[in-house]
């Protein structure tokens, strides 16, 4: 139930399997989860070991139990799509698919690989209930992911 709710929040925490992080994310009720959500995002990925922050913008789409799509428009158009059975990255019309279990019903599971979750130091989201506007994921190696979303 806890996982289900964190669902996040919108996409992102997801990606990192943030639910498994050490920072508590206040559970929300299932009712708080939208069946669908879409909007725009600004993502800042800070890579600690090279001290570089990569910024990208784009759109996202979330369909509960079916699809999570993270479409980067700038600086390089590409699409990351996760379905219950696969995830795929499409660049210039070429798609690379990986058969990696995901469950968009529980965003937190998109990155099912629990080991990835364990790289996460913590997750902060605002607001803590319902679909978040802002998500921060801190990684144990110093990397950081800041995402702002607008529905």
């Amino acid at each position, binding site marked *: 139930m806890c996982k289900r709710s964190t669902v996040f929040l919108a996409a992102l925490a997801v990606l990192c399997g943030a639910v498994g992080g050490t920072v508590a994310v206040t559970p929300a009720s299932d009712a708080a989860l939208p069946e669908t959500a879409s909007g725009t995002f600004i993502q800042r*990925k800070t890579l600690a070991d090279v001290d570089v922050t990569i910024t990208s913008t784009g759109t996202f789409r979330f369909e509960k139990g079916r699809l999570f799509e993270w479409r*980067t428009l700038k600086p*390089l158009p590409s699409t990351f799509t996760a379905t219950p059975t696969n995830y795929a990255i499409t660049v210039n019309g*070429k798609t*690379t698919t*990986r058969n990696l*279990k995901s469950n968009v019903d529980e965003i937190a599971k998109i990155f099912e690989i*629990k080991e990835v979750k364990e790289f996460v130091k913590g997750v902060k989201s605002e607001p803590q209930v319902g679909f978040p506007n802002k998500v921060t994921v801190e990684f144990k190696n110093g990397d950081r992911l800041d995402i702002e979303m607008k529905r």
Partner: protein
Amino acid sequence: MKTARIVLAVLIALAGAALAWRVCEGLRVETDVLALVETEHSGSLMELAAGRARQGQLLLEGGDEEQLVKVANVLSEQFKLNTAVDFQKTLRYLAPRTRGLVSAETRELLRAGKFKDVANASAARLFGPVPPLFSVKDDPFLLAMDYAMSMQSNLAPGWSLKDGYPVCERGDRHFLLMQCGDLSLEKAEEIMQGAERINGSFAAGFAKIWCCGPVFHTARSTSSAKREINLLSVISVVLVALLGWMLFSSWRFVPQLLVTVGVAFFVATGALFAFFPCPHVITFVFGVTLIGLAVDYVYHSRSAGGAGKVLRPLTQSLATSLACFAPLLFADISAMRQMALFTMAGLAGAYLCALAWRRSRGDRPTGGDDITRRSRGDRPTGNIFAIGVGLLVIAAMCGICRVKVSFEPSAFYSPGKFLAEGEKRLFELNPMGGGKFACIKGKTLQESLEIEEAVGLRGLSAVIPSLRRQSENVVLVEKLKESEGKTYTELTGLKMPQEDTRGFLDAANVEDESLKKVVRSFSPRGNEIVVPCPEGFQSADTRVVVLDPRQAAKKMFARLFISAGKLFYISLAALAVLLIVFFRKKFFDYMSGVGGAVLCTMGMLGWLGIPLTCFTLLCFFVMAGLGLDYVIFHRSKPVPETRRTVLYSFLSSLAGFGMLAFTEFPVTRGMGVTLAFGLFFAYLYSGDEFSRRRRVTSSPEAGKQGRTNNSNASRGE
């Protein structure tokens, strides 16, 4: 008798010396069924079988993947199975060794010179929501991350990783595979019993645990065989002892029987080890037939009041049995030569022991009058008996047209329903290929990996490429940097590393437990790699051997059968010659009994739907040997005592061998049924019922003589 004792002492001494010699070298017995016959690639097949002998998997099936993971975790905890892949640990181990690791797709793009495509895909990964798994300092293109994410797909296409477990789905059913690795038989049986218990406790459709892999089959067969051997051997011993007591009305025969059987086995084992350093275990299984032959010798020598009194039939019995088995000595199959040597040496030991035994007194068979009355009786009863036997024989022989010969492995081993269902499901999911395997024989593991890559197989090299391929990948990545580095840096802000501090991943020296398991599953025995290979795969490389275990087993059983069949004909011919020498014109009376027993037994196998296999065929040698014993003794002195001794000898053998018919293992069950019917018909034909009738009809004097003998015997003369 003194000579017999001296010869026996020499034999025992020689056997002891041979055994002592082998014990010093370390006694070894071959247990692999594939070692029975030398076939094409049988060495590789044995290595394949040995490498997989202790491997097992648990396949979990259910409607909810989450539940399967929970069940898997419970099983891991309960049975201390470290089956889940610790991917995080593996990633940590990989981090400093990723220099030459790129996914198969990326490698193909790089080789095709499509550097732009690779750079774009890398940038997309970087700008995407997924965090890098490895430092971008040495790997700005995230190629190692791409490799890591493709590992599971490469290892088992169609399967993915969930919480460390390989999972897949077919329709609405979910499957989870737990690779147990090497298991002891005890542990495998414990897991199997636990799985069956848990399956029974789950609600229908919730989850089902299937046990797959050779170790579970071996464990189940072993526990079943132990249970059967314990039970059936007790019943056999009790029956044999009881029959002996009924024959002699005392237990004084027991020491002689035990010593004779013991000496027979000791001499046989010594002879076997003297000529075969590593005999096959099947030889000892077949050698159990010695008990029946030893019982014959002991019973007849005791019932006659000493072996000297039945020296002639005893010697004839030995000679015919030796003639029966002797052709097997010239078989081109080692296991058959071993069986022949073991049985012949054992027979000689039992014969000499019977001769050397101190003459027994007051241990003559009892109840001869009853037997005479029952078996001969008055004329009407005798006629009905003869008609009944005749009809039985005709009915049995009619089954010959239904006899089937089988070389199929299923005729030799068929798993229980639980194991068969599990294997069927795993085969359908096919995570590691079909029934064929390619055995890649490099001098080192690296060489084997290079061969695997060169012939285009996707085995271990799909997960851990060879060092040579990793070096090639480094060169390709350098070209990528040269071609796209500048643009990529401008786009992402990541600089191209001047010096790569990472090393290579050496499959021969992995230390990570998960990767070790992967390497062991492909290369269980040193430098060779065994890879499931697709149908139709061929390679001109002589270091790549394509193995089809099922076909190889069929070929092996076929060769055994054909060889045993040919030798059986030779045995019959040798017996005919010997019987002509011994009995001249009467030889047909002896030979027809054996022939009739063989035909009737084959017919019964046909009626019962038991296929004729190489193992059941071997039983015919025993049947011929024992059957002739019955005829020889019956006719050597056709008195009630002899008939009674032959009857109890037959019943003792039946109690011993017939019990095998109640075992679960198809091979022993088939042998048990064959021997039971074989001995029954051999005994039936050995009685002087048929020959007496022939003598009665063809020679009134002979009939009269027969009746006189019977009446004399009835009076105890």
